[in-house]
């Protein structure tokens, strides 16, 4: 049930937030550093702790960026992405 990644050669990076991911980078979402209302909305769209998130294309200038998560593509602005903390991809939790 985990998100299928089409790209085998994704980098696993240890950057702190989603904002630090470059296109093609993937990481595991650790926690969302936002008020519970906003975090809940993000979670309903697939940004759940433990999910693998891959950075996709963006609008010109790099903001907002599309992220592939849980089978969907969701666009987030930089200021929001900066609140989504990620960790190095060691053992993805299966949902």
């Amino acid at each position, binding site marked *: 049930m985990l998100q299928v990644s089409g790209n085998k050669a994704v980098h696993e990076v240890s950057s702190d937030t989603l904002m630090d991911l470059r296109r093609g980078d993937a990481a595991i979402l650790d926690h969302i550093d936002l008020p519970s209302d906003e975090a809940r909305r993000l979670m309903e769209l697939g940004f759940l702790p433990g999910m693998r998130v891959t950075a996709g294309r963006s609008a010109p200038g790099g*903001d907002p960026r599309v992220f592939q998560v849980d089978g969907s593509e969701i666009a987030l602005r930089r200021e929001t992405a900066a609140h989504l903390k990620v960790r190095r991809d060691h053992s993805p939790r299966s949902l």
Partner: protein
Amino acid sequence: MSGCKECSVGCAVESPRVRAATRPVALVGPPNSGKTTLFNRLTGLRQKVANFPGVTVEQHTGFALLSDGREVPIIDLPGVYSLSPRSEDEQVAYDVLTGNRSDTVKPEAVLLVLDATNLGRHLMLAAPILALGVPTLVILNMADDLRNRGGKLDAAALSAELGAPVVLTSARKGEGIDRVLEFLAGAMPQPQPKLLPVLQDVPKCREWAGGVGSRARYHAPAPPHWTRRLDSVFLHPVAGPLVFLAVVIAVFQSIFTAAIPMMDGLHWLFDVSGNWVATTLPPSLFRSLLVEGVWGGVGSVIVFLPQVLLLFLFVGILEDSGYLARAALIADRTMAKVGLQGKSFIPLLSAYACAVPAIMATRTIENRRDRMATILIAPFMTCSARLPVYTLIIAAFLPEKPVLGHFLGTRAVALLGLYVLGFVAAVATARVLKSSILKSARTPFLMEMPSYRWPTFQSIGLRLLDRSKVFLRRAGTVILLVTVLLWVMAHLPLVNGQAPPIENSIAGTVGHAIEPVIKPLGFNWKVGIGLITSLAARETIIGTLGAIYGMDADSHSLDLEKALQHDLTPAGAVALLVFFAFAMQCISTIAVVRRETGGWKWPILQFTYMGALAYAGALIAAHIV
């Protein structure tokens, strides 16, 4: 719903197996699940759009036709990700489903539409829906996509897990629709889910959905390669904005070129029928009312229907194909710069069609200050009522010359310029509002990028039909009323039982009275009358001028374009365009702003501000041209 009251629980007991739902059935699903396409498939032309009383969420209802000829009422609820309501859209969906709305009967059953290609996440919505205990059919839509991309699942196993019937459909292709109709005709059992998660806990719901999916042997499909490929162009740092620009230009150019033959056809139709009325009826005041008021007034507005429909055709294709979400993404930085959020983009975009539904659509914006700012700037967006005014004046004053070969002409450039002008006014106003009276913290921008899909003829066709009805209804009510009123005022007071020359009529007197105010803008008293009547609805000015020119000895032999050239200088024409770009000439918009903001304060402020801007802008335009 008609007929809901006759059938109480009693008749369910009498004949539980052959009864069709007589209470409505609710269609529920997340955004981008293909819910609306399915609704169109089920109901076709048997649908209507209204508002839920008290709130401004649109209520789409329709009737599904069963094989035995019975009709089942279907309510298409707003798209929701969960049943924990935050925005008004979600509140309405929640209230309808739980029977908390006194104006809508609690649905007899629920059709839950989920995207089969994204089942892990979409199944999360099944938990709160099944927990309602209402008979539910789980519809896994886009089954064709699932197959084509190598995904699969065991529908029977899923049905056993959820304790509810499951069908695979492709609303776009019409696959599986008969199974949905069978459910509507059948006994509709209560759902018996094996177990449900704690509904308030999103991770638990997702875990539950994942478990259910894997027990139903769900294999997620491969990523949508075509979508990725198209995005590599449409979201390319250089090509993306260029495509965006090309799309916009193509839309505007074709409004001028492709619509012309159809408009000429309508024109001819009104000419021929008008002449027929004029020659068949004996000369009388009634004939004059018909020919000058109805044919000259309403007819000259209806001629613009093809342009309006063409605009909606393009917007419909862009929206249904999924490109609009990318356009919103590309435009987001601009929105952020003026302090607005991405959610404001969709209402503002629909304001290009009409400000009234756009202002209603702002209900999805949770932040009240952002919502107010969006409401206040929406009427600056060039709505379809401005389009006929713009195209008429541009065509009368600007000769068509190629700018970029055959692809782009001067008239399309002028029209595009007016759209940009309205947009710039909106952006500047938003900036002022968001840095002063409507300052607020920024809220997160979240937008799902749907996979690209071919738009269906049915969805686009139904949309065009709906827009035609709205346009013709306006022409037949507001515009007809105003032109008839104008005709009466242009024929009074009677002098020796005869209508006076229009200059001496009530309308002429009013026009002359305001002439000193509008003279600096380059407008004469005839245009002045048009400005007054266009307060009701912008496009009324065309009917008004059509009627006045028809009655005025100076110009009655000329067609509308020629008559305009006779009455306006090129500078005055530019001023008139600028005036229309800025002014809030629309009773419906004023009414909806009053309702949405709960008082007269905001609409009065807005009307005054936009009017002052229109006057100042027109004054400047008249002097620099």
